[in-house]
């Protein structure tokens, strides 16, 4: 097996057993990037020299017995909205085209402590606003399964890099489905943890009450190992939650006997592609055959999640993106008359179309006279949606459904109609509003060979249930 085809836990085991080295592994993945990335454009920045230096340092620590963990020596790709000291971090935006952070995000530090080698920064929708990775200022990423199709987004570069063997695993961020949906489109595993599980320190904010960092991996075991490394309580993030149950690999058991799984009827209705529906229901049958109790139920309020989400996310984005003013970092316009004109011109030239659309909408819904009618109303609907999930989780351990209504669309088909594109987030978005953990696991392909993703959702802090069910399903599928 080629090194770049190995899972993270396989590769680390091989490195720790002396069968290969972190240096060899890094060279193998860099060679794969060299060979494939012109086709797919997964990366905004590849840090070849930095990765080689890290690999040597990590290998020395492994040989000295200082690094013994499940991810030691394994090369990783990091989404370009997560700060890395000394390494360009653009958010795939022109406005941060030259931004070199002075510090490293806590999540990346946690990976470094686990012996990761950072390969570079992956492409994304600009400021994580999009579902296709086509709004990047550095060109779209293409789906390695079929390069005529998008990889999904906004963590499209991370998902595509995992699928193309251009990294062993990756991290992304998920505000409304931005990890789970590209994982689904590219046929890899992606997880959005319970809000507060992974520190947001160093994650460039989009919708702060919704954003979470999470893993994109080749299998469920890697996903659990990476989440175990990423999760930590961090006083630098005031929304970070203390958890003492973060050994997620302990949950990798093939056992769903008696597990209660609910499938929302609302997730199987109009707009869902037939092939996706069939694949998802087949996956539910697999879990049922392993002893899970699977039922249909009405979740309710599903159609209100998207308008509530886009109101809240746009409001938070308009506030968070005020910091890009052409003074402290990033792009500044060349010619201007006075301070305010400099702000306006720098921002107007630096931000792309979708980002400006959301900043405008967010500024409007927060403005005096409209705040109650739009923003406050959306926060109230959020409370109702959370309550609907509370009711569901009083009956079920897990909710099962599709990740997205369709498989990956072709490049160029999505951006023309923003609302149509937003509707594609229908199954992922409520999870962020309610702070829940959700995982996307490959569950087959459509007739064109494009991957389909199964989504499992659990109550807050119940990632272990997700891993048990996802692992059971994955192991069962491997056997047949």
């Amino acid at each position, binding site marked *: 097996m080629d090194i770049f085809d190995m899972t993270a836990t396989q590769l680390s085991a091989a490195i720790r057993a002396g069968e290969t080295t972190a240096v060899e592994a890094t060279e193998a993945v860099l060679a794969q990037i060299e060979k494939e990335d012109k086709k797919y454009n997964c990366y905004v920045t590849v840090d070849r020299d930095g990765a080689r230096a890290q690999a040597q340092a990590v290998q020395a620590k492994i040989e000295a017995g200082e690094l013994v963990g499940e991810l030691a020596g394994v090369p990783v790709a990091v989404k370009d909205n997560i700060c890395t000291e000394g390494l360009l971090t653009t958010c795939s935006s022109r406005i941060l085209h*030259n*931004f*070199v952070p*002075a*510090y490293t995000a806590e999540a990346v530090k946690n990976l470094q402590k686990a012996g990761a080698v950072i390969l570079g920064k992956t492409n994304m929708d600009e400021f994580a606003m999009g579902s296709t990775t086509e709004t990047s200022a550095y060109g779209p990423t293409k789906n390695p399964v079929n390069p005529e199709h998008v990889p999904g987004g906004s963590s499209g570069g991370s998902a595509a890099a995992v699928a193309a063997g251009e990294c062993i695993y990756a991290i992304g961020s998920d505000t409304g489905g931005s990890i789970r949906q590209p994982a689904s489109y590219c046929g890899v595993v992606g997880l959005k943890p319970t*809000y*507060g599980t992974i520190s947001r320190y160093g994650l460039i904010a989009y919708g702060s*009450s919704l954003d979470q960092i999470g893993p994109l991996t080749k299998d469920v075991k890697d996903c659990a190992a990476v989440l175990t490394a990423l999760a930590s309580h961090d*006083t630098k993030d*005031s*929304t970070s*939650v203390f958890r003492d149950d973060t050994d997620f690999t302990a949950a990798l058991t093939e056992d769903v006997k008696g597990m209660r799984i609910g499938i929302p009827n609302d997730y199987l209705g109009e707009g869902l592609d037939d092939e996706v529906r069939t694949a998802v229901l087949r996956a539910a049958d697999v879990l049922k055959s392993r002893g899970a109790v699977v039922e249909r139920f009405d979740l309710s*309020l599903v159609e*209100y999640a998207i*308008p509530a989400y*886009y*109101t809240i996310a746009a409001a938070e984005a*308009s506030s968070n993106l005020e910091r890009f003013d*052409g*003074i*402290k*970092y*990033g792009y*500044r316009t060349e010619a*201007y008359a*006075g*301070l*305010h*004109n*400099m702000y*306006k*011109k720098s*921002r*107007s030239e630096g*931000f792309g179309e979708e980002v*400006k*659309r959301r*900043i*405008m*909408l*967010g*500024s*409007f*819904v*927060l*403005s005096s006279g409209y705040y109650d009618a*739009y923003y*406050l*109303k*959306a*926060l*109230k*609907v*959020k*409370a*109702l949606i*959370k309550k609907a999930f509370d009711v569901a989780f009083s009956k079920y351990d897990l909710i099962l459904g599709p990740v997205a209504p369709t498989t990956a669309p072709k490049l160029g088909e999505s951006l023309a109609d923003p*609302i149509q594109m937003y509707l594609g987030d229908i199954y992922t978005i409520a999870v962020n509003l309610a*702070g829940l953990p959700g995982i996307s696991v490959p569950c087959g392909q459509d007739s064109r060979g494009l991957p389909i993703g199964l989504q499992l959702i659990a109550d*807050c802090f119940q990632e272990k249930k997700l891993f048990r069910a996802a692992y059971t399903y994955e192991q069962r599928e491997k056997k047949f």
Partner: protein
Amino acid sequence: MANIITDETIEYVGILAKLELSAEEKEQAKADMGRMLDYIDKLGELDTTDVEPMSHVFPVENVFREDVVTNGDERERLLSNAPQEKDGMFVVPRTFDCC
């Protein structure tokens, strides 16, 4: 379309958002925002009387720490990202018109 966004509204939102849109972008923004607000108006179907707005899923509390400096002097590194700097300071355009 139920929500008609006027030129005045787009001007006003542009000021709040600190964005300068071209004439073409303004027309697009009017149409986009109108459609989006029509869509968001769907929330009005739900009765939310007596529902507390939920900004965070978990209760958020102030996080306190001892007032001890933990970071070093990062002035040079932070200034190195500035579009313009001089003598250890950010250079900004004239802020007040005077005289």
